[in-house]
């Protein structure tokens, strides 16, 4: 562990980590890839706002409305700077990453749209990959069904990498949009954005990144990445539920048709027509998740104060240790890269002859070790590997090597139970 990174101090910020589970088990939370825990700093900001400063945003001219508006818009500033957005107006608050992905999908092939880049019909193609989360698959399937466009995808190699061998056949002049994960929520794989983007640019396609698993865990700079759209979600980044983020280049937000209609997203409304507010408000219909955005602002403040480089280094140390220790468990097979290059702090595996549901339940029941079991909303990826499910341990800034030891002890016990 790096010396300046004091994980014990960090753990004190997360109230739940001191919780005793029924039966006196301590909690070993290795499910942050599913959803992260929240520091007191975030919880307290939300409580204080709800208790003493809450009013609706944008519309109100009184003290409470002004305080909420200021805090809400300040959260936008914080998030913009956290991901290196060239402008705060490029940050659209959604309810989660899934809404952000759907928002972009609904911009295509919409009869209201007039921009050629977002026109879509039979003959046009959408490219995703076999390692995507369902939230980066189903919106595009629905889009293809609405418009008659064709959905295509990258396959995944045995090592759990994006198979780019047919990049040029897959991404072609027919491609309108490429949308892939920045980091896989199952394999831990970090995808080679630059190579795919270069090809997308060559053929004039737009490119979206599902950064749900990268933004919480390492420095992400949208300008440096150079893509067109990026989605992530608050609850995986030490923030509350109910808040997600779409970042998109200002010029694209302007070109896209509105998605949800309602209060706040308009400029002027007549019965028979409306004009729309400039982005980001154009895409924030209705009362937004005010306190949730404020909570996310506190979360990125918290993460930035710890340091994203330091968090990434800490997780790299954890995953190195985990791969080494898990490698010693008989019958255990890691699904995904077993080296440290281009991979994050998520390790999925199978245990020979034992179903992940049984693994997860016994780890929880007897050791208080919380992992995720199943297909992790990435069923096609599991189909690709010919397995119905895996067990997944995913790490965050508050995890320790001792927790990995607890996981490994638990796995040995699981093997004994089902021997």
């Amino acid at each position, binding site marked *: 562990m790096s010396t300046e990174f004091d994980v014990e101090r960090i753990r004190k910020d997360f109230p739940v980590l001191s919780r005793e589970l029924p039966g006196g088990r301590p909690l070993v939370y290795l499910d942050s890839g599913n959803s992260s825990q929240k520091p007191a700093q975030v919880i307290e900001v939300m409580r204080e706002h709800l208790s003493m400063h809450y009013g609706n945003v944008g519309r109100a001219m009184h003290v409470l409305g002004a305080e909420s508006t200021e805090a809400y818009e300040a959260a936008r500033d914080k998030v913009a700077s956290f991901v290196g957005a060239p402008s705060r107006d490029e940050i659209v608050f959604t309810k989660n990453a899934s809404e952000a992905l759907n928002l972009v999908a609904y911009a295509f092939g919409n009869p209201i749209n007039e921009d050629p880049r977002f026109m879509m019909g039979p003959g046009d193609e959408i490219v995703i990959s076999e390692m995507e989360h369902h939230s980066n698959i189903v919106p595009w399937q629905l889009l293809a069904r609405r418009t008659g466009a064709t959905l295509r995808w990258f396959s995944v190699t045995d090592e759990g990498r994006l198979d780019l061998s047919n990049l040029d056949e897959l991404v072609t002049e027919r491609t309108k949009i490429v949308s892939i994960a920045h980091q896989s929520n199952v394999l831990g794989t970090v995808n080679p954005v630059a190579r795919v983007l270069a090809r997308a640019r060559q053929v004039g396609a737009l490119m979206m990144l599902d950064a749900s698993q990268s933004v919480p865990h390492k420095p992400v700079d949208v300008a440096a990445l150079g893509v067109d759209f990026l989605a992530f979600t608050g609850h995986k980044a030490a923030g509350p539920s109910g808040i997600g983020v779409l970042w998109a280049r200002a010029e694209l937000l302007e070109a896209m048709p509105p998605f949800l209609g309602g209060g706040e997203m308009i400029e002027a409304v007549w019965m028979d027509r409306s004009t729309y507010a400039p982005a980001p408000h154009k895409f924030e219909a209705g009362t937004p998740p005010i306190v949730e955005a404020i909570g996310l602002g506190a979360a990125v403040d918290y993460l930035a104060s710890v340091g994203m480089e330091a968090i990434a280094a800490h997780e790299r140390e954890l995953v190195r240790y985990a791969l080494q220790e898990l490698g010693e468990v008989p019958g255990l097979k890691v699904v995904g890269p077993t080296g440290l290059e281009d991979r994050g702090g998520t390790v999925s595996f199978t245990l020979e002859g034992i*179903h*992940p*549901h*049984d693994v997860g*339940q*016994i780890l929880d*029941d007897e050791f208080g070790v919380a992992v995720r079991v*199943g*297909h992790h909303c990435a069923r096609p990826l*599991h189909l690709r590997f010919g397995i*119905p*499910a895996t067990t997944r341990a995913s790490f965050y800034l508050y995890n320790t090597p001792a927790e990995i030891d607890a996981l490994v002890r638990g796995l040995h016990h699981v093997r004994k*139970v*089902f021997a």
Partner: protein
Amino acid sequence: MIAESMYQELILEHYKHPQGRGLRDPFDAEVHHVNPTCGDEITMRVKVGDGGKVEDVSYDGQGCSISQAAASVLHELTTGSTVPETLAVVEEFTRLMQGRGQVEPDEDVLGDAVAFAGVAKFPARVKCALLAWMAYKDAVVRSAS
């Protein structure tokens, strides 16, 4: 009577040594059921003889210990009973599983299947326990038609 842990000795025993596993002839109906959320699956055949007696329940499948043990216990409880008797067990088992751990099981009806009572407290696992039983119910209905 409701167990602390889900993993009763009896469940583990049936999982490790499944009874009546394998698909056999003759049969009146064959069904294939899948639990799409977790991928558990089962193929089940039922042979009903004269007088509505269940002569054989044969099956094959894959999944967690709960779903596999449930199929094995089901094989034992149903083979040799009459169809109405077995449907009463299905009904009581379903009631137990959907009771969120609040239902007092009827041991006289359930026999060994009472060992699954602990599963009812884990909503995510209830479907595993029910997979074989739902398949059985389906197969019996088809065998009658």
